[in-house]
């Protein structure tokens, strides 16, 4: 029963990822694509969570944390890139 529910949940997450994927490709602006990518990252977290339950293992909890951090850093970097044109600014005193 639980197995069944888990698969249904996975299917749901995949469907939402598909929608987000469509948004990544379609655009129309870069900001749309970045937000869609961020959400795909979050969906990935849930996929990994669900899969760990199915596989009955706790080894993937680090992966979940990592995806969280990476999605955050990536989104921040993209945002800065869109706003200022570069990610790491030059030190002005140099």
């Amino acid at each position, binding site marked *: 029963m639980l197995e069944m529910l888990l*698969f249904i949940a996975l299917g749901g997450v995949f469907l939402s990822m598909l929608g987000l994927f469509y948004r*990544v490709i379609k655009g129309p602006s870069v900001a749309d694509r970045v937000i869609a*990518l961020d959400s795909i990252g979050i969906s990935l977290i849930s*996929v990994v969570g669900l899969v760990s339950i199915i596989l009955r293992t706790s*080894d*993937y909890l680090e992966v979940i944390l990592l*995806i969280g951090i990476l999605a955050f850093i*990536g989104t921040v*970097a993209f945002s800065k*890139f869109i706003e200022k044109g570069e990610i790491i600014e030059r030190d002005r005193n140099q």
Partner: protein
Amino acid sequence: MSLLHFAILLPLVVSLFIPLLYKKIRSVHTGWFVLLVPLILVAYFSQFLSQTMAGKTVVATMKWIPSLDINFTAYVDGLGLLFALLITGIGSLVVLYSIYYLDAKKEALHNFYVYLLLFMTAMLGIVLSDNMIVMYLFWELTSISSFLLIGYWYERERSRYGAQKSMLITVFGGLSMLGGISLLSLLSGSFSIRESLATVGTYSSDPLFTVSLVLFLLAAFTKSAQFPFHIWLPDAMEAPTPVSAYLHSATMVKAGLYLVARMSPIFAETPLWFYLVSSVGMFTLFWGSLNAVKQVDLKAILAYSTISQLGLIMSLLGLGAAALQVEILPDSLYTVATVAAVFHLINHATFKGSLFMMAGIVDHETGTRDIRKLGGLSQLMPVTFTIATIGALSMAGVPPFNGFLSKEMFLTGVLEVSESGLFHLDTFGLLFPFVAVIGSIFTFVYSILIVYRTFLGPRQLDKLPKKPHEAPIGMLIPPLVLVSLVILIGLFPNLLSNTLIRPAAEAILPKVIANGGTIPVEIKLWHGFNLELFLTVLIISVGTFLFLTLPKWRSLYHRMPKQVSLNHQYDALLRRGERTSTAIHDTVMTGYMRSYLVYIFGFIVVLVLSSLYFLDAFRFDVNPLSTVHTYEVVLVLVLVGSALSITFARSRLTSIILLGVVGYTVALFFVLFRAPDLALTQLVIETVSVALFLLVFYHMPEISRKEERIKFKLGNAAISALVGLSVTLVALASLSQRSFASIAQYYIDNVADLAAGGNMVNVILVDFRGFDTLFEISVLAIAGLGIYAMINFRKTGGIDK
């Protein structure tokens, strides 16, 4: 190392000190020091005469590479000694001549004598080596030193051309000789000529034996300037005249004759040997004498005459092979050709050496060698005129000089073989005397031409660059010694017959001696009225007639189209070879990375698919496959979908993002296939590399950022599809054909006990197989340092930033 080895290597050792002598002692011509070397060697080698006359041989072995059966075995028999005496004797005369010919102040004498001594060692090495590999070594050394000597005046273009041409042709022959040596030693099991000869009966029916024979003959023909490889010799006349006299008349060009004579006992029982050697030699005799008549340069006439005379000796060696076909030799009739070959070899060295020196004197004293400008020098240079007359008459075969005797013997040999009925010679054997007589007639014509156009006829002093006068006495001594030998041998021919000719002929025909026969060497100046004498009279009278009418028919030579000439063919061959290779290079090496990738991938596809097909290597077995889950199918669809969309993406930014999707999907696969460490690393690395791709994209010039699809090319699509197909097939085939069980169980069992760890991947990385990790760390370090270096040490306009 015996005294004999030291004698062979003496010139080489002395040559090391020549530059020192040249630099330190400038007041004395360096040649005087060099002169001692051949003189000592002549004296040394003369000692062996008594032994070879008694039919004995001298062997001395020096170990060189014993494990490979390569030892420097010096072997002195009649044939080797004859050549050694020629090399050192004429070497002494040539060195003496060169002292007066080359100016100590203007010429680079240290170069000249180093090359010359190098050559002397090389020639002595060839004729006195029993080990074929050592002989090959010296053989190539003669090619190299001859190359250096021809290119002695390297600032002249013709010298460089001649040196290159002779190098290419003789090295071609040398390499084929190496092939012949390899085959022969494989068959006989030894590099030694004598040992190969002892066992020749056991392997002479092998088909490779014939191949070896042809390869050896190629070497001999190229070195001895036989048709069609004779073309390098006239161009080698750019060398200083002492070199032409020494290398290109008396010694080096006879190395091929030596090889034929030395290998005769092994190969001569094959009919092919007889046919090739005698007919090539005969044709060369004819062709060389025919072409000599049309030359206008004294040295060029002599070069073609050398070719022709070498052809004569070569054909005699071939005819001598007929002697081995006859089991019982009633009166040793057929050995006359071999004796004639040896005799003419000696005679040719004497008269041709003197003629070359004469040409050098004329060149030295008048400033030209062009016979159209020369004439009437007989009263101005009487001694040189005498030398030229005796040398040329001997070459023409006029009695009482030595050339007459060997020509008579040549005619005897030719007539006998054509009558012998061997090798079905009844029909085309008649050609031999015919060609021989025609060749001899032309020989007569050009011999007279040399003397007449240079020393007789009208005097044209205004055309000469220098005012002619008689040469210094030092320059005249060497040719005078040679022409006195010409007369001496001509009048007392039996002087040499027992000392030099018989031992040499016995070395060429050992089977005759082994069968209890003897080789009669009785050379008579007058042998009665016979066919040969009438032929000589015919040659002289027709030759005189042709010479008198020469201006009338000489223009026939210009009728011959230029395209047929072998020099033209050689040049065209070189040009065509160069052009073809450039053309191939230009089409294949386009400079575009994409073409090379097409070659690489195309080659991989052909190799993999054809080996799968021809080796019948493809298997597909469903047993090792596991069940497929739905989520795996979904992930595969995502992976394939995004990978395909990369190829159709319009902007590069989309491609980068899609590549990121592929990477993350792979990370998800790692999750599904239970590889948490891989998944972690994959996620981080994918993020970093996507960021790097974006960085690169941001810095791209505007023009490359415009949106454009990848252009479709059918070839590329086909190759990529085939690469995918072959990799897939190989993966399936290797999955289905596991030979051994995995060793993973060992790690599972021991990860906790032996390595005190719980995470097996990490334990393998740092414990079981930590060595790989160390070097992957190094790779990362190198990459980091490399990036730092590339960014910080950029050169902008030649100035470090």
